[in-house]
């Protein structure tokens, strides 16, 4: 009985912290329509601040609470709204998600930069861990009473705010129709800013409360994910109702503690289940709770994508293969390997282009499908041992099929869910997989066989060998991955131009309208999810074998989010967006950060500067992601538009081609380094549209010489005025419009 009571109280305490975090989410979602993935990161950042002022500076707790929860929290929220979130009105769900994801990543990187993750940071309980009372044989700490009281007070307070005050009513109205709010004499931006400030305060409070009860250790990633568990509680209230959110949070807290108390503690199962329980509940709640009906009217968003022509896609694919081959000649062996890794990420990114860019469905866990495929390929496709080990083609095909089947399973909720809810469901699936399968290092006995899903927590994935094609060689691997990317990309372009692609586009714009036209939405969604998952699976197997040894971290939630973010930044509606985004995710940050890391190790004196630069690159990528709100179609769109306008500027194009050829020869003969070549080529490619535009502008505005004016065009007042001006006949003009008649 005493065990039951103890775990019940612990569960209620955990639930109350979840409730505080979740009500902050509900608050911001209801007033701005943005589901804040960065909520956990804000909690984390605030808690680190709290640690800093109490431990490092030795401030008393009450002062720290006033400054951190009372001032820094609201300031952080208000700043977020003013700088980023207010620019997100009228954008698609994926853009809104990506921007908050970018804030999440950026905040985590920033925190790891400021507070070294290798040092221990601990936050103590209020009144100390020793301050406690005993009720009915159960010990309750003061800190836990504070948690419970705060949760109840906040839930009641928010309920009153939302339904019994005009400010709350206006806040709720601002998500429906900001213009109507203006017509009513309110400022919707003020209401939204207030809600962001409040939401951020609640996040910080939840962070400060939860760290001591979950062990006291402060870790940027772990704390961010801990608050993400509160998403499940918010979903209980369908992101609207505060009382139901409160109840959901309590269920979540209790369930987590009962699992610990009553399930057998042998093996990794119970621990893993405890960790993934919130995600399982989130998934279940999403699928079971009644959801919004299909939206009838199409919602116009600010994203614009052009449809690729198959012929153009084929030409560009061939050009890509050629360019990659030529470039690989310049690279050292290690460079080729990294490049190949980037290309495998680009293949995974293609799965997002077809799913999100073409069909408008969301998937926040593309790497999870890669993980499924990798596990299958590892168990069924490896031949030989040691250095002679190879992956066979049957293994890869089986892996792709398995990924497609799992994709179909995940699509089942997608048949009912849209937009944000679907994104959360895929996130829950990815986290569940990462916690249950990729951490499953114990032996299982099933149907007379003994196996381990993820032995030793890591898998050694050998390269593929098909007939004479052996991918052990770096260049062969790179070229195979590139050719695969090109083939899939051309295939997707063909798909998009065909009837199936048009049906997908119709479903994206208006599910209701396309259902009325007799389309089978179930089959469409299921098939596009399976196609996408198969591509992600193929890319995942290749990615694993390019990496060599993969562990849970290779398929982490943050990894998936970073990939998705970079693809959206580049342009998720474009095949080239997948290429650029995937390369950036696979190569970009890894290479830059490790380069700076190596430099820091090599030069002791400059170490701090190089480490700082490495951190800056990471934070910088996140900053780029936050900029998506300004340019939701992605930067590839702008570059393509720039080049499209240059078709008339032939001399500039020829000049650029010649410059490229010269640079390449110089690089091949080692006159300039590979990096110099890559940087100059990249800058030239980016700057070319600008040069072309100024060239075209100059050609267009070159004035007609005075003596030829009016010869081959009608004689207008404007021309007369110019003649007068040039001839010095100003007096005629100044006489109030009296003109010299011809």
């Amino acid at each position, binding site marked *: 009985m005493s065990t039951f009571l103890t775990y019940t109280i612990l569960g209620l305490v955990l639930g109350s912290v979840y409730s505080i975090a979740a009500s902050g989410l509900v608050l911001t979602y209801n007033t701005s329509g943005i589901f804040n993935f960065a909520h956990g990161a804000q909690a984390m950042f605030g808690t680190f601040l709290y640690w800093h002022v109490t431990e490092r500076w030795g401030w008393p707790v009450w002062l720290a609470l006033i400054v951190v929860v009372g001032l820094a929290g609201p300031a952080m929220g208000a700043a977020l709204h003013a700088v980023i979130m207010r620019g997100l009105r009228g954008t698609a769900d994926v853009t809104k998600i990506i921007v908050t994801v970018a804030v999440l990543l950026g905040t985590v990187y920033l925190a790891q930069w400021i507070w070294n993750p290798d040092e221990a940071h601990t936050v103590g309980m209020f009144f100390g861990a020793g301050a406690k009372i005993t009720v009915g044989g159960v010990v309750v700490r003061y800190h836990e009473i504070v948690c419970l009281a705060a949760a109840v007070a906040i839930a009641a307070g928010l309920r009153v705010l939302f*339904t019994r005050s*005009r400010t709350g*009513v*206006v806040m*709720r*109205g601002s*998500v*429906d*129709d900001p*213009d*109507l*709010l*203006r*017509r*009513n*004499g*309110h*400022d919707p931006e003020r209401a939204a800013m207030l809600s962001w400030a409040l939401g951020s305060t609640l996040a910080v409070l939840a962070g400060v409360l939860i760290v001591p009860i979950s062990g006291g250790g402060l870790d940027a990633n772990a704390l961010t994910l801990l608050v993400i568990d509160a998403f499940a509680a918010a979903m209980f209230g369908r992101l609207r109702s505060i009382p139901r959110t409160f109840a959901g949070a309590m269920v979540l807290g209790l369930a987590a503690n009962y699992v610990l108390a009553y399930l057998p503690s042998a093996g990794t199962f119970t621990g893993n289940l405890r960790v993934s329980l919130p995600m399982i509940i989130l998934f279940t709640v999403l699928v079971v709770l009644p959801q919004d009906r299909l939206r009838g009217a199409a919602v116009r968003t600010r994203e614009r994508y052009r449809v690729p022509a198959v012929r153009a896609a084929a030409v560009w694919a061939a050009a890509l293969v050629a360019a990659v081959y030529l470039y690989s000649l310049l690279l050292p062996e290690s460079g080729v390997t990294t490049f190949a890794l980037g290309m495998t990420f680009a293949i995974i990114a293609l799965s997002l282009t077809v799913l999100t860019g073409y069909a408008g469905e969301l998937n926040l866990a593309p790497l999870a499908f890669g993980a499924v495929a990798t596990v299958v390929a590892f168990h069924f496709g490896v031949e030989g041992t040691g250095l002679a080990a190879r992956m066979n083609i049957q293994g890869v095909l089986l892996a792709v099929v398995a990924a497609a089947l799992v994709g179909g399973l995940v699509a089942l909720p997608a048949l009912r869910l849209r937009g944000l809810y679907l994104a959360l469901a895929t996130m829950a699936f990815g986290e569940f997989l990462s916690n249950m399968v990729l951490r499953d290092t114990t032996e299982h006995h099933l149907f007379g066989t003994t196996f381990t899903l993820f032995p030793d927590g890591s898998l050694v994935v050998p390269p593929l060998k098909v007939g004479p094609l052996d991918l052990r060689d770096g260049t062969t691997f790179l070229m195979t991955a590139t050719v695969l990317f090109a083939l899939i990309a051309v295939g997707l372009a063909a798909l998009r131009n065909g009837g199936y692609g048009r049906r997908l586009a119709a479903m994206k714009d208006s599910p209701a309208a396309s259902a009325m036209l007799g389309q089978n939405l179930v089959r469409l969604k299921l098939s596009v999810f399976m196609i996408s998952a198969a591509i992600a699976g193929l890319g995942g197997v290749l990615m694993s074998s390019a990496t060599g040894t993969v562990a849970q971290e290779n398929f982490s939630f943050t990894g998936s989010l970073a990939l998705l973010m970079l693809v959206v930044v580049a342009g998720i509606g474009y095949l080239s967006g997948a290429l650029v985004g995937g390369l950036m995710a696979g190569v970009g940050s890894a290479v830059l950060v490790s380069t700076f890391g190596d430099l820091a190790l090599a030069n002791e004196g400059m170490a701090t500067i190089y480490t700082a630069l490495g951190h800056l690159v990471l934070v910088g990528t996140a900053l780029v992601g936050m900029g998506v709100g300004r340019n939701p179609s992605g930067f590839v769109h702008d570059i393509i538009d720039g080049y499209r306008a240059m078709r008339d500027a032939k001399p500039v194009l020829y000049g650029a081609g010649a410059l490229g050829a010269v640079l390449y020869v110089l690089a091949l003969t080692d006159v300039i380094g590979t990096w110099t070549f890559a940087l100059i080529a990249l800058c030239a490619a980016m700057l070319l549209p600008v040069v072309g535009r100024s060239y075209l502008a100059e050609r267009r505005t070159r004035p007609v010489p005075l003596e030829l004016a009016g010869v081959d065009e009608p004689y207008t007042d404007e021309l007369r005025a110019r003649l007068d001006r040039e001839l010095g006949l100003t007096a005629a003009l100044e006489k109030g419009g009296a003109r010299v008649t011809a």
Partner: protein
Amino acid sequence: MAEEAAPLLELEGVRAGYGAIEVLHGVDLALRPGSLLALLGPNGGGKSTAMRVCAGLHPLAGGELRYAGRKVNGVSAQDAARLGVCSIPEGRGIFPNLTVRENLWAATGTGARLADLEEKAYARFPVLGERRHQLAGSMSGGEQQMLALSRALGTDPAVLLLDELSMGLAPMIVTKMYETVAELVQGGLSVLVAEQFARAVLPIADTAALMLNGRVVAAGPPAEIEDRLSSDYLGG
């Protein structure tokens, strides 16, 4: 003709557009105090854009917007509302996820009291009183429009801007709505109505203006404009 009172709301040579596309090419309009001006014309003529400009929701690219003779170019919609310009948008000017009472509460942003608003709204439209705790989005189209119009009843504005009041409503409801508007005008309110279906509003209008392709092509007594309507709608 006697000296006319200075207009309460005036557009002069107003140009406005969306991005590179200009929609209003120099619009002139004047709303006299205590009168009802009907802005007529087919779809795509620029009526709604003109109404948005008047309400302070759309920026001007040229010309002048005047309230009571004072130039107010660039006024924000919330300031316009506080100055006494009550504007009801096309479609339903309500918050669907708030209850009827909460909608009225939101309408007190211009300084009115909730109790007054409720009293006037429920007296005029008793059905709203019965549904005060119902979500506004779950009411019928007519009831939603009544709720939208209630804002004009209770907040005591100087000018009322109505955009397509009749959209999607049964003729009987439309008649009832315009009866309410007519009473408001008798009470001294100045009203600018943009309306596609001229028959609904012409009987109660003091003046009418016909808008085609972003210009006011005719303005004058309703009877004169009515004669031009058929030719401009069908042939113009």
